[in-house]
Structure formats: C-alpha cells, structure tokens
C-alpha cells in the first residue's frame, strides 16, 4: 500500500472545495471527447450541475466527470495522459470522462510548464493525489449517508459499493455531498499492478477535433473587433532599427496603424526565458492577414549595426550583467572561431586518474572531431498570440510552453499587476522548446494596449524562422586510449559551442564517466549575438549523437561488438565505478541495450541492410535505437528503426510509442538535413524551400518501439529518444557508405571542416 500525504496540494484543494460549496453551474455543450468514436450516439449527456472536488476534477450529478489537464499541450498528448492518471486513482469509468485544458493558475497548480520531459514525472504524485482524494471524499459521503464505516466501502468504475449491506451508487449521486467535505490528510494510492486505466492505451481526447479541423489553436481565434498585427524585425543578427517611414504603407488597403515599440521596458530584469533577440520592432496593424502581409513587404525601413552592450538577466532573483557582442556573423566564421577556441586550453569539468599520462603511453589512440550547426525549431504553427488588453485586464491567448515565466514580463510591460493578466493556454502546433520563450505574448499585449482592441499577432513563416532562439552550433573533440588488449583505459571529451558548451549542467558525469579509469571532460564557448534556446533535449541532442558515434568507432578499433563494448563498460561502472556523481543507472542503461539487441535481432543482419546502434541517458530516461539503412540508387534510406526505452511506468503506451516514433523521425531529419546558416548576420534559410525538413519519403518505413516493463515512477519521454538517434544514424551510415560522418547534417552541403 502506498500512502501519500496530501499536504502538497492542500492549499489548492481547500481553496477549490470552498469555492465549490454550492455546486458550480456551468452550461455548455461538449462532445464526449474521451471516446474518439465518430458515432453520434456516443455524445455524452452533460450534467445539470457540476461539483468541484478539487482543482483537477468536477463531477456532475449524472456521473459525467470533467478532468482538467494542468499542463500546456504541444503534441506530447498530456491532454490524454494526465487525465488518465487522475481517472485511475479516482477509479473512474474512462467513457464518462470529459477533458478540458485547465486555466493557468499558479495557486491551483504546481508546474504548468511543458519542457524538460518533466510533465508526467513531476505531476505524477499531484495527479494521483487529486484522483485518490476525490475518491476518498466520495466514499466518505456515501459512508455518512449509508451510516457504515468508510473502510467498508469500495469503488469500481465510478461506482461506490458497500458489499455487506448491498448498497451501491454512482459517483454522481454523492458528488454534491463529497464537495462539501474537507479533503483527507493522507490518501491511499493504488498498487501499480492494480492499474486499470494507466498502461492501457487511450485514444487522443482531441483526436476528433483535430481530424475535423475544429478551432483549437490561437491562430484560429476570432473576436469581435479584432485586428491583425505583424511585426517587422531586423533582417539579421547584429542589427537594430534605425528608422522607418509609416507613410510608406499607411494608405495601403486595410492598414490601421504602424508604429515601433520595445518589447521589454529598459529597466526590466529579464529572466532566463525572456530572450530579447530584437529589442525594438515595428508593428503593422490592419484588418486582415493578407493586407498586413502586403504592407509588411512594402514598408520602408532602415537598420543599423548595434554596438556591444550589456543587459541585466534576473535568473530567479539572481541578477547578472550579460554582454552582447556587436558584429555581423557568418557560418564560415563560426567554424573557424570554434576551431580556434577548441585549440586553446579549456575549462576542466571532471578529471579521473591521469588521462594525459595514459594517452602518452597507450597502445592505440583514437581522436575525432564532430560538429553540428544551428537549428531552427520550425513548429508547423508559426508564432502567434491573441491579446485583448483593456484598462484593467489583459487576456492573452497563446501557444505557450511556459505561461508562468512570461506572466511577470507581460504585467510589467503593461503596467499591471500579475493578477490582472489572464493567460489562456491554447493547443500548440508544436513547440520543441521554442515556445518557452514567449516574447511574442508581450509583443501582442503591447500592440493590443496601444490599439485598445483585441489583436492577433501573426508571424510569417519567414519571421518565425529568422527570429533566432536557435539550437546552438557545437563542436566536440573526443579521444580514447586503448591498451594492448584493447581495453578502454582513457577517455577525453573537449566540447564547446556558440554561444554555449553542450557539456554544461552535469553532462560531464554521464556515461562513459565512471567506466574509465582515466577520464577528462573540458568545455569552452564562443560568444555570439545570435540568440539560442532550448531545442528538444538541449545539449544532449548534440552530445548523445556524437559520443555514441565516437564509441562506435572506438569499439571497432577495439575489435568489439558495439553493443557488447558498451555493456562491458556499464558492467565495469556498476561493479567498480570510477569517481563520484556518475549520472546514470548502469542496470537501466544496460537494460535498453539488451532489449534493443533482442528486439532488433542484432546478430542477424539481412544482406543489403546496414545497421547502427546507439543508446543514451538524459532527462531521467534511457533510450536505445538500432537503425537499418539501405542504399537505394546511392541514397541512404532508413528502412527500420527498433527502439527500446526505459521511462518507468508508461501511462498511455500507444501514445508513448507515437512520441518515440516522432523523436526518431525528427532526429533522422535533423541528422540528415537540419541546419541554419548565416551570412553577414542574415539567416540563409527563411522558409521550407531552403530549410530542408524530413518528409514522408525520407522517414523510416517502420518503427518498432519497446518499453522496459517496470514499476518505477514515470520519468520522461519527449526528449530521451531524440539524442541517440543521431548516433545510430551516423553509425548505420558508416556501414552503408564505408565512411565515418563527423559533421551534421550528413546529407546536405554545408561549410565543411576541411
């Protein structure tokens, strides 16, 4: 039995149950979203009255239950998996569940943030507690009415049952009484083995809306009197607004206003996510998208180079001055700057043993350098936001991964208090990290406030792709020393990037640290005015790929099978670990390698198929892939990917497999084609005609996803399968082409290392 103190969410439970005292009356019609069937007969009859038992759920008198998804949805399917967790502990009948996106409310919910693969991991206990608490309150209400001990009441599929007396009732019958009760001090949680809903795939609750084109995205919002706005930003990094001529477009059809504005107040202490790529923008406001787009093309505007300057970064109260260099950068210069920096002494992050001595005395030394370019996120729904700012209130509807990190900036810029700012989290057309940086919500708010009207701010694809906040460019040199018996005796990684190193935040303690007696990790960085941001598995998305590619080459030099080579190292780190703080569980790491070896029939490669393997641990979960490539008319085609993951308990298996499939396709696409390059500060790629994205004919024909079955609390899923796919692709490509691939993207012309 697992007992969980309800203390964590007590504040919110007390608040909402008090507010729900008389029963909350809400009238609207809603389709039964949990049944993805298209049959009309399965539309749920909505209750007359709702009773809120806590911030996560309300039960109608007819038993229909609404469960709120607290976290922003960008395709990871939390709209389904989070309510499944609540429903499990509530012992709910999934057919009678309706799902709604919760309001953004930091008092009611703990972490309304989508990022770091932490959604399910961090909400696991709060969501279970919400369901279990409500179930307990329903039992208490029934016990009081039936005059029997609570302990004798059981529940099953949304029914309260008292076996000794034969009494039975649906949840709806006791919802009103339960809503009056005080939540229990602690609740009993289900055993994992007794889960009925968790672990049984449920269809996406928004599936029907998606396939019918229903309004779900902020770009689809239409409000009375709403204007359309676009911004014009400097065409390159290192440039700022000099002057513009509003008269050049003011008389164009449908144009209402043209003005420049600063996104943030000058004295505002910006937080980590308030990245201010282009501090001053020109806004064009008009009646329709097409009219504003045309005016945007016609605007007369001048830009000028900015000089080096500093700004204040306020990272959770810790203020630091950050310097931004001047200059118009180019990709060619980036490569030489990285090579130059990489040749200098770097910052030591971890050292075990005496690597330099061992490298000098080794029988064999392998040294390789890897690189990867900047990447743009390219979410399918371009950046946009709907803001309705009136004198005392701002309602901001937006695709946002991090409403909590932008609320303060919006309030500060509008001269309001944060409680006057209401943020509506719309379904996002993708995010991948980009929508944690919500400058566009401030921009829309500023424009709406100036116009005194609701405004929809729309970025063109070109705006979206050229606005910065990219995945950094990276370079890493790896060295490995083997003794005469081909044992790995020393390992050295020296990595850096523009403008940050990929080895930060403890990555130096990852595998194979702990498995090698002599180990050295060092980092360096090159400053830049090109802004960067989190991109699916930040830093790991480079490290995972190149480290696994390097290990493949080391295994080959050692004459060992690449999977066995890794397993031997993991065994070493388990039985006789080197150093401290090794950041991985050797058993779970080995587990995914063994599972992928088994499921891919690793030992039996079909003729004409070239295979590569890779595994990685990041964001608390383990992933391993085997990639099968065939050469078709001289072009590598990924035939199949076999994936093994250990992310603890899997809430919604088919949806989890979908996400792993997506990470694999995303990784293959970026490994083959992904890159953003620059010339004199200007991004070379502005739309999908030049920025090559993976398409169906380049995606694997089959992806086979397997999860390690265990009872470990869920860890993370969105990011962990992404980094190792770069390595598995590189290793399969080597087999297919007899040539090692060190520079991403593998199948595209770019500035080469020479």
């Amino acid at each position: 039995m697992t007992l969980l103190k309800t203390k964590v969410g007590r504040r919110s439970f007390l608040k909402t149950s008090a507010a729900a005292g008389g029963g909350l009356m809400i009238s609207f019609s809603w389709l039964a979203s949990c049944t993805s069937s298209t049959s009309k007969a399965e539309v749920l009859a909505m209750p007359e009255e709702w009773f809120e038992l806590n911030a996560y759920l309300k039960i109608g008198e007819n038993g229909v239950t609404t469960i709120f998804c607290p976290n922003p949805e960008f395709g990871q399917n939390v709209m389904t998996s989070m309510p499944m967790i609540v429903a499990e502990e509530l012992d709910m009948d999934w057919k009678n569940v309706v799902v709604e996106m919760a309001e953004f409310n930091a008092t009611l919910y703990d972490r309304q943030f989508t990022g770091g693969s932490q959604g399910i991991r961090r909400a696991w206990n709060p969501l279970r507690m919400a369901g279990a608490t409500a179930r307990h309150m329903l039992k208490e209400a029934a016990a009081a009415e039936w005059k029997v001990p609570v302990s004798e009441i059981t529940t099953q599929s949304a029914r309260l049952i008292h076996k000794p007396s034969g009494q039975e009732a649906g949840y709806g019958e006791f919802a009103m009484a339960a809503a009056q009760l005080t939540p229990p001090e602690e609740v009993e949680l289900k055993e994992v083995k007794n889960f009925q809903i968790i672990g049984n795939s449920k269809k996406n609750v928004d599936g029907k809306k998606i396939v019918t084109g229903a309004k779900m995205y902020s770009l689809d919002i239409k409000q009375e009197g709403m204007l359309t706005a676009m911004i014009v930003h400097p065409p390159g990094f290192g440039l700022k607004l000099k002057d513009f001529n509003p008269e050049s477009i003011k008389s164009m059809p449908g144009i209402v206003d043209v003005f420049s504005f600063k996104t943030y107040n000058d004295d505002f202490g910006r937080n980590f996510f308030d990245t201010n790529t282009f501090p001053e923008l020109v806004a064009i406001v008009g009646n329709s998208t097409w009219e504003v787009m045309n005016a945007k093309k016609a605007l007369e505007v001048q830009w000028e180079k900015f000089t080096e300057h500093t700004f204040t970064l306020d990272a959770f109260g810790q203020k630091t001055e950050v310097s931004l260099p001047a200059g118009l950068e180019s990709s060619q210069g980036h490569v030489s700057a990285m090579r130059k920096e990489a040749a200098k002494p770097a910052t030591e992050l971890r050292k075990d043993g005496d690597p330099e001595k061992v490298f000098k005395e080794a029988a064999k030394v392998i040294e390789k350098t890897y690189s990867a370019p900047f990447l743009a996120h390219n979410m399918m729904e371009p950046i946009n936001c709907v803001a309705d700012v009136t004198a005392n209130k701002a309602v901001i509807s937006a695709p946002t991964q991090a409403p909590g990190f932008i609320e303060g900036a919006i309030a500060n810029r509008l001269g309001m208090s944060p409680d006057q700012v209401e943020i509506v989290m719309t379904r996002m057309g993708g995010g991948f990290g980009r929508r944690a940086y919500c400058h566009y919500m401030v921009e829309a708010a500023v424009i709406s406030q100036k116009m005194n009207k609701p405004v929809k701010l729309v970025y063109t694809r070109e705006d979206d792709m050229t606005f910065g906040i990219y995945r950094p460019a990276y370079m890493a040199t790896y060295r490995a020393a083997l003794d005469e018996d081909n044992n790995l005796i020393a390992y050295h990684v020296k990595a850096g990037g523009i403008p940050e190193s990929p080895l930060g935040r403890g990555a130096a303690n990852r595998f194979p640290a702990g498995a090698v007696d002599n180990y050295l990790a060092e980092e360096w960085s090159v400053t830049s005015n090109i802004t960067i941001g989190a991109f699916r598995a930040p830093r790991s998305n480079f490290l995972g790929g190149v480290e696994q590619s390097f290990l493949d080459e080391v295994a080959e030099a050692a004459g060992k099978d690449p999977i066995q080579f890794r397993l031997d190292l993991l065994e070493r780190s388990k039985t006789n670990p080197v150093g401290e703080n090794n950041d991985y569980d050797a058993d779970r790491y080995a587990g995914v390698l063994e599972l992928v070896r088994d499921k891919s029939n690793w030992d039996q490669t079909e003729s004409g198929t070239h295979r590569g393997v890779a595994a990685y641990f990041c964001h608390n979960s383990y992933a391993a892939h085997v990639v099968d490539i065939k050469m078709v008319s001289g072009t590598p085609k990924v035939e199949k990917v076999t994936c093994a993951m250990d992310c603890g308990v899997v809430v919604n298996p088919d949806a989890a497999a979908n996400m792993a499939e997506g990470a694999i396709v995303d990784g293959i696409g970026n490994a083959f084609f992904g890159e953003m390059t620059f010339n004199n500060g200007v991004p070379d790629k502005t739309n999908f005609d030049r920025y090559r994205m993976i398409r169906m004919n380049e995606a694997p024909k089959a992806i086979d996803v397997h999860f390690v079955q265990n009872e470990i609390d869920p860890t993370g899923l969105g990011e962990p399968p992404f980094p190792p796919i770069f390595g598995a692709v590189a290793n399969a490509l080597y087999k297919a082409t007899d040539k090692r691939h060190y520079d991403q993207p593998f199948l595209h012309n770019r500035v080469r290392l020479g």
Partner: protein
Amino acid sequence: MAKFNLNINGKGMEVDVDPQTPMLWVLRDHLNLTGTKYGCGIAQCGACTVHLNGTATRSCMLPVSTVGNNEITTIEGLSENGDHPVQQAWLEHDVPQCGYCQAGQIMSATSLLKSNPSPSDEQIEASMSGNICRCGTYVRIKAAVKTASKR
C-alpha cells in the same frame, strides 16, 4: 477590392476582397473556416491543402480571383460528422501529435485515394511528401492511408 461568389463545401459564399488574396486567407479571415492552416505561404508544407474540384491544392498560393465556379472543399466540408473513412482511419491509428498539419495531410490523402483507391507504398510516399509533419507522424499517416484505402 472585388466581389467573388465562391462554391465552398457545397454552399455559395460571397466575399469582397483584394483579387490577389490567396484562398487560404479568404477561408480563414473572411469565411471563418480555420481548419485550413497557414504553414509557409509558399506551397512547401501542405498545411493549407484544400480540394479544388476534388484535387489536392495548396490554398496559400491560389488567388481567389482564379477560383471562379470551381468547387472548393475544406476539412470542414469533407464529411458531415467527421466520419470520412480517412478521418476514421486517422483516429484508429491515433495519428496526430500536435495536430496542426493533419487537416492538410487528410486533404492530401483523400485526394490521393479518390484518384487511386489502392495506392502502393511508393505512390503514397510520392503523393504525401508535399505535406510536412514536424512531429514526425509519417509512419502512422502512411498506415492510416492504407487502412482507409481498404474501405
């Protein structure tokens, strides 16, 4: 500005817009049919796919003045209750992640199946490769097209 009488989802609709306005924006801004999505504006991603007389067409580069009496079908008009075999197959395979590109994918798939009811893998790939799915649901999209082709 000019007036245009359009035939959309079987209904006559009138708009008064700049003749160069792409159908995408006529649908989204003027007719409030927002199921058709803006992705790139240069016919490279397929998010804006509609049917022009039954054939998949990128609406972002289709000026309203060129449409005339031709029939336009959008995702909203594909079926009355969202139960077109392709839509059903999409639900069965639980295809979508973020969902943003899926209306365009479905419009491309229905157009393909209309002209070729039993496409091969290669034909599906050739026909669907104009539609980008940034979430990478291609394996499921292909499976759903195959399922729908059997109905």
